[in-house]
């Protein structure tokens, strides 16, 4: 049956839908508040019915009937398989090796997928302080794949982020600080790393050297426009064309089932 694509949707709708399509059926997904939550919940209702979700406050495979406003929300634990705490989430699940996919956000990202959610400017004399790392770098450390959902703005796509909160593909190895491949930092703990970045303009992936490239461009944008919205020299030569649009069914699910109260999708 031909897909019935939506003609009218908002940028965040496409973000949620494109993210949901990154979930493989059966994936164990570790997600944060907001769009990541919408993405995993939509995936569970469409192409990945056997995927399960862990939230860092300690709920494992919850089945919320009302959208949680944060990962600590009682709604996360409704019909959960296990409700425990952070030690369970970070060590019993994530460090233990169960997590296939992490859905994360970020304020700034660089061409290696290093993400900053900590400060603007010099850490020792910051201009602005963000929320801090939260579980972002942890999930990004040991999930087999991670997908970042971000706003595309030139100042957010940088050659080097001001502070590496969350580890991409080329990283400082402490104590020396020498930049090396992620595999060298994680050694035998290496499980994978950032696999996609999804913004309001396109879908990005990483080549074998761990450098970001444009994979698909969202309808209404050109690859060049995306490149112009990066401070680093984005590789657009591998762009496969347009990102698949949301279907009518997906939009209906998002607005009528996943976020029926209009919390993240007003």
């Amino acid at each position: 049956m031909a897909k019935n694509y939506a003609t009218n949707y908002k940028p965040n709708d496409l973000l949620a839908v494109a993210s949901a399509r990154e979930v493989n059926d059966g994936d164990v997904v570790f997600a944060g508040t907001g769009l990541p939550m919408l993405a995993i919940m939509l995936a569970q209702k469409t192409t990945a019915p056997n995927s399960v979700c862990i939230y860092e406050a300690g709920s494992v495979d919850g089945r919320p009937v009302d959208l949680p406003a944060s990962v600590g929300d009682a709604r996360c634990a409704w019909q959960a398989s296990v409700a425990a705490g952070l030690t369970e989430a970070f060590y019993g699940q994530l460090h233990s090796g169960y997590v296939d996919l992490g859905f994360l956000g970020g304020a700034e990202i660089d061409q290696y997928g290093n993400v900053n959610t900590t400060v603007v400017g010099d850490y020792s004399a910051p201009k602005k302080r963000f929320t801090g790392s939260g579980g972002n770098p942890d999930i990004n450390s040991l999930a087999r794949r991670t997908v970042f959902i971000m706003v595309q703005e030139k100042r957010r796509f940088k050659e080097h982020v001001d502070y590496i909160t969350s580890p991409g593909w080329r990283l400082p190895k402490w104590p020396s600080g020498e930049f090396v491949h992620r595999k060298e930092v994680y050694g035998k703990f290496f499980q994978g790393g950032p696999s996609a970045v999804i913004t309001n303009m396109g879908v990005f992936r990483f080549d074998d050297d761990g450098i970001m490239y444009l994979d698909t461009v969202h309808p209404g944008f050109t690859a060049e426009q995306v490149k112009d919205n990066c401070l680093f020299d984005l590789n657009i030569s591998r762009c496969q064309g347009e990102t698949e649009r949301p279907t009518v069914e997906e939009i209906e699910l998002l607005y009528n089932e996943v976020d029926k109260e209009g919390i993240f999708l007003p």
Partner: protein
Amino acid sequence: MGKPQKVTLKEAAALINDGDFLTFSGFTIWRRPMAFCYEMVRQGKKNLHLFEVNGGTHTEVLAGAGCIGIWESCWVGHELYGKLGEALAAGQIDGSIIVEDYSHGQAVARLLAGAYGLPFIPTALSMGTDILNPKYDNLKKAGLRDGSNPKIPLKKYDIVHDTLYDKGEILLIPAANPDWAVIYASQIGTEGTVRVFSQRYVDVEAIKAADKVIVIAEEVVPEEYIRQEPDRNIAPGYAVDYVVELPWAAHPTGSQFNYDVDADFMRAFYQASKSKDGYKKWADEWVYGVDSHEAYLEKLGVNHLQNLRANTVMGYSTTMKRGTR
């Protein structure tokens, strides 16, 4: 060891000295001992050293009032209802608060090690990040890693080579053992057994890691009742030193199966927290302007609170309007 002592909110807050090392129950905007934090503000605590697996609205209330000297944690904000921790950020930027950043998983390791009486726990979480950048070790820069404060580790972390399975390098994260854990819990038995509902966050670990424990409980229930399902309890009475029975003590944060997050109240606080003046005005109304928790509740009003009341089956409010639809 023995049974916890019943005290009032004012008495409990008076136990805390300026400079003490504290941690709290809860997760971001859930199950925070808000009433206790308001009372600490009223009592004018200074230079508190906080270790928090994560921060939240309570952190911002303390930061805005100038109570915090050192904050070791990974995150502060109000989730959907206020993106940033504005007061804490201002403190870091103007240098009045020493911030020591860990990742969330590393912060869990710190408290877990503290809970188990271990000096450290290994972890592979968040290797290769600037969290480990030696230049960014703010407690060291402040000269506080010299061993003179037994609560501050000599190093922010260590890196060792695994000799048992040759898995390569791994981090050792130092324990955190605060002087005080201030825990908001849904139920406490008459002999001190503690219960929370739904996710446990790191409340179990906080209780064990701290030298002294204050529990602010939504309600006191018969000990025989709470012991009928011992697998659901998080701590025995001998692990608790002081108890305050205080309904709605987590407001405006939520408490599963008691009440939901007060989104409007939190949004208003967040707006206020963006400036010193804004904070002062807000605190004059909601902290300094009410001389007791009961007066605070009265000011909020019955219908406002009733709207937050959790559905007893679902565990959260099914009556409050949350979004645009």
